[in-house]
């Protein structure tokens, strides 16, 4: 029995860079170099591990984004994914999470899937709700925020560590799953993997291929709006002392002065 996995990934501005907003209040994607979102590497890794543990698994990595987003696909392909699909359309600029979930759901359906795998959230928008929205749109179970995931006999199983309890989850395929940064470190692409990735197919898709009306996506089609963005003022420099044997007592005096003690 074959298993088709689609891994959804995002090309994001490097979180260690000096990120800003563009004039239209969307994320400035030019000011800072982009890369495959670190949290999506965990999803690619788990897809590869499922492939290693099962027969006849095919992994397609899917992204929505501008021309640069190809870099994210290339990275995932060099890690070992089999093929890629890239939804790229000028009308997508400024699309909110609702529109993104519409586009990805249509693309996933077109590609064909048994399991959709996602990271726990992006590192730019950080909403963490896209997998749930995909499940809602596709009408399949969501098995999300997993620190452990496996597939066997047509079901996906996993462990979800919540604030009050750790849960064991199970759902029949097809399903949408997401994994956290606790699921296992992602592998580095090998030289062989990097060379092989250059020959792997990347399917180009636009909104007309997916049968989506441009009015339903983009900044104008968003269901929420950002009215104002403001850079947080830098914290004013405080007092830093070197411990000469009294550091703990000095700190206690500071805490007492601020009435914490």
């Amino acid at each position, binding site marked *: 029995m074959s298993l088709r996995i689609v891994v959804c990934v995002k090309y994001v501005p490097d979180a260690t860079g000096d990120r800003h907003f563009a004039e239209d209040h969307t994320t400035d994607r030019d000011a800072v170099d982009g890369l495959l979102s670190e949290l999506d590497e965990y999803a690619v890794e788990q897809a590869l591990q499922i492939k290693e543990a099962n027969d006849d698994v095919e992994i397609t990595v899917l992204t929505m984004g501008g021309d640069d987003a190809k870099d994210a696909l290339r990275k995932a392909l060099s890690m070992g994914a089999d093929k890629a699909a890239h939804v790229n359309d000028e009308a997508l600029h400024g699309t909110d999470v609702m529109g993104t979930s519409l586009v990805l759901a249509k693309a996933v359906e077109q590609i064909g899937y048994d399991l959709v795998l996602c990271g726990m959230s992006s590192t730019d928008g950080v909403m963490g709700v896209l997998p749930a929205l995909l499940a809602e749109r596709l009408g399949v179970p969501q*098995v999300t925020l997993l620190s452990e995931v496996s597939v066997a006999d047509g079901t996906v199983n996993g462990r979800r*560590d919540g604030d009050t309890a750790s849960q064991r989850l*199970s759902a029949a395929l097809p*399903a949408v799953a997401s994994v956290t940064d606790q699921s296992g470190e992602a592998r580095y692409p090998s030289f062989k993997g990097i060379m092989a990735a250059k020959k792997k197919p990347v399917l180009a898709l636009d909104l007309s291929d997916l049968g989506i009306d441009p009015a339903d996506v983009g900044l104008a089609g968003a269901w929420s*709006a950002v009215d104002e*963005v403001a850079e947080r003022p830098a*914290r004013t420099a405080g007092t830093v002392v070197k411990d000469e044997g009294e550091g703990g007592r000095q700190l206690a005096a500071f805490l007492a002065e601020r009435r914490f003690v």
Partner: protein
Amino acid sequence: MGEVLVLVDHVDGAVRKPTLELLTLARRIGEPVAVHLGPGADTAAATLGEYGASTVHAADAPEFADYLVVPQVDALEQVAKAVNPVAVLLPSSGEAKEVAARLALRLGSGLITDAVDLEAGAEGPVATQSVFAAGFTVRSRVSRGTPVITVKPNSATPEPAPVSATVQPLKVLFGSAATGTKIVSRTPREDTGRPELTEAAIVVSGGRGVNGAENFAVIEALADELGAAVGASRAAVDAGWYPHTNQVGQTGKTVSPQLYIAAGISGAIQHRAGMQTSKTIVAVNKDAEAPIFDLVDYGVVGDLFQVLPQLTDEVKARKG
């Protein structure tokens, strides 16, 4: 004023503090109405009324405990369609955010997650969010449908506004998707007796410099003397020294306490994202060049194994 639905976060009827914050915020934009799913609605109603909820829509069914997320979405959708509220507020937990997203999609409504403040506006509620590792503050609103907004813990101080709460039993008609993801088993987390990380007034966190699981006792001793929660950096969690539930940072919890004490934490962006909105920040680190010192109100360059025990003893002595 229209009604504002608030999803109650509770453990068997014991209402958690973020819900009281939601009820307080809800009163700024309308009349709070609580939705209580699972057992204990009658117990919860007294607390919910204390904070201004005159009505508590209450449903209990095995589906809420046995299946993930969707049963709650079905229940909220049913109440939302009956009440036609001006907004729906939920806590910003991983699970409640997923509930919020699916609800918003079903209602054809926009979604805002992780608000840290909320106020009434000419075109509906205006939410404040802290983004890009807390480097920016954003004000946004929902432009279509009924605003569905999740709010982070510690975003408001709960203010009582006592009314008498009426419990309205709700019979939920679950859809076929409700039983899609089975919760096969559940292992409750061990109760440490310490405050909840995201709700605590004081947080003491340890990082790479703690250098071993057993050494976290130094962090815990100070935390217990201050009545604080214990946090950990990603480096400490990845090393297996402390549980992931205690991780502060981009992929862990975001905290905004009155006082944050970072011990042996360098202050990488991944950590700063989770703590730099704290009111007062204190750090102890061996490395004078550590970026954490750029954020502090007070910093000590030194060995945390010397400084922290001395601080703990001094706090104990001052409490006398």
